[in-house]
C-alpha cells in the first residue's frame, strides 16, 4: 500500500482521530434486547471505517436470525446522524462468526449485575460437543443450578433455576 492510498481517509475529510471518536460513539449504542450492554460490550460492533467519504459501521449478528439487527442498524445510523454524520451506512458481516468470547469483561460484569449468568469463559466447544459446566447463579452465586430450557426469551439465552435460592434466571449461552 503506498502513501497516497493511506491518505485517502484524510482526503475524505475524516481523520483517524475522528473515526476513533465515531467508533466510541457508535459503540455506546445499547443492545435493544439487553439494554445494559452496548454493542461494543457484546462484540457486535466490528469496525467503523470510511469508504469514499461515507462512514461505514460493520456489525455482526449474535445468531443468524437475531431480530435485533434491524433495530441496531437504525440506532447506529441515528447515533451517527446526531454527530452530524449524514453520509453513513451499516454493513452486516457473518464471518468470522460471532462468539460469546467477544463479550468484554465489562460486558460480563454488567450481565451478572443485570441478573443474567454470563457465558463460560472459553472458546466454544466444537459444534455438536456441547459441554455442560455448572452455571453460577447471578443472584446468590451458587453453583447448584439446573437448566430448565435450552432455549429462552431470546435466541442467545437459556432458562435456568437456582436450587439454592430458588430464583429462575437467564443464562447467556456459550457460543
Amino acid at each position: 500500500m503506498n502513501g497516497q492510498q493511506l491518505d485517502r481517509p484524510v482526503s475524505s475529510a475524516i481523520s483517524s482521530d475522528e473515526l476513533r471518536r465515531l467508533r466510541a460513539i457508535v459503540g455506546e449504542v445499547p443492545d435493544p434486547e439487553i439494554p445494559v450492554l452496548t454493542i461494543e460490550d457484546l462484540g457486535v460492533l466490528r469496525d467503523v471505517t470510511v469508504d469514499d467519504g461515507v462512514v461505514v459501521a460493520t456489525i455482526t449478528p449474535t445468531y443468524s436470525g437475531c431480530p435485533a439487527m434491524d433495530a441496531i442498524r437504525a440506532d447506529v445510523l441515528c447515533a451517527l446522524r446526531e454527530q452530524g454524520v449524514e453520509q453513513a451506512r451499516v454493513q452486516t458481516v457473518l464471518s468470522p462468526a460471532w462468539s460469546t468470547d467477544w463479550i468484554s469483561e465489562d460486558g460480563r460484569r454488567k450481565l451478572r449485575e443485570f441478573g443474567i449468568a454470563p457465558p463460560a469463559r472459553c472458546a466454544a466447544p466444537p459444534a455438536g460437543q456441547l459441554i455442560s459446566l455448572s452455571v453460577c447463579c447471578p443472584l446468590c452465586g451458587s453453583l447448584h443450578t439446573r437448566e430448565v430450557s435450552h432455549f429462552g426469551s431470546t435466541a442467545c439465552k437459556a432458562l435456568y433455576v437456582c436450587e439454592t435460592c430458588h430464583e429462575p434466571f437467564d443464562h447467556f449461552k456459550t457460543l
Partner: protein
Amino acid sequence: MTDVAAYALRLGDDALVLSQRLAWWCSKSPEIEEDLAVANIALDLLGQARALLGYAGELEGLGRDEDALAYLRSEGEFTNLLLVEHDNGDFAVTTARQLLFSTYQLALYRRLAESRDETLAGVAGKAVKEVAYHRDHATKWTLRLGDGTDESHRRMQAGLERVWPYAAEMFGPDALTDRLSAAGVGVDPATLRAAWDEYVDGVLAEATLARPQTDWHPSGGRRGVHTEGFGYLIAELQHLHRSFPGASW
C-alpha cells in the same frame, strides 16, 4: 440462474420451509419451554434462509431480494427437500423430522464452512453452531420419548416411520451438486451419509427405537415437485405479502 445462486436458493428454501413448519408449534407445544425452543429454532432457520435467499437474489442480478424470492415464487419454483415440508404430525413426528434434518444440516454446514465461496462459507460457519444446538435438542427429545413410557415410545417409533422414507432425498446428488462439489464450492450430499447413519443409529439405539426399513424413497423437491400439503404451506406463508404488496412492520 448461476449454479451458486441455484445452490444458495435450495439451501435457503430448506431453511425457510422448515422454519415455517416449526413456527406453527409456537403456543401449541406440549410445554411452554418447548414453545420457546421451537420458536427459537425456527428463528435461527429463518435467519439462515434470509442470508441464503438474499445471496441467491444478488447473484441472480434480476433485482429479486429475499422477500421477492420467499413470497413471490410459486410452489413449483421452490427447491427444498420434501422432508422439510412434511406435515408436523404430533410432537413425535416433528421431533423425528428435526433429528433427521438437523443431523444432515449440521454435517452439511460443517463442510460448507470450508467452501471456496466466501459467502456460503460465512453463512454456514455462522449457522453451524446454531444447528449443533438444534441437533442436540432433537436428540434429547428422541431419547426422552423413545426411552420413556410405552405410549411415548410407540408414538416416537411411529413418528420415525412417518418421516424416514424422506431422508434418502437429502443424500441424492444431482448435476448441480456434482458441478459445485467438483469446484470446491458445494458439497456432494452422498458423502454426508455415513456420518449421518452413524449418529442417527447411535441415538436410535440409545432411545430403544428401531431403525425403520423401507424401500420407498420419494423425491422431487429439488426439481420443484412437491407433496400435496406444500401448496397450503406456501399459501399461508405468502398470503399477507400477496394480499398487501409491500406490507412491512
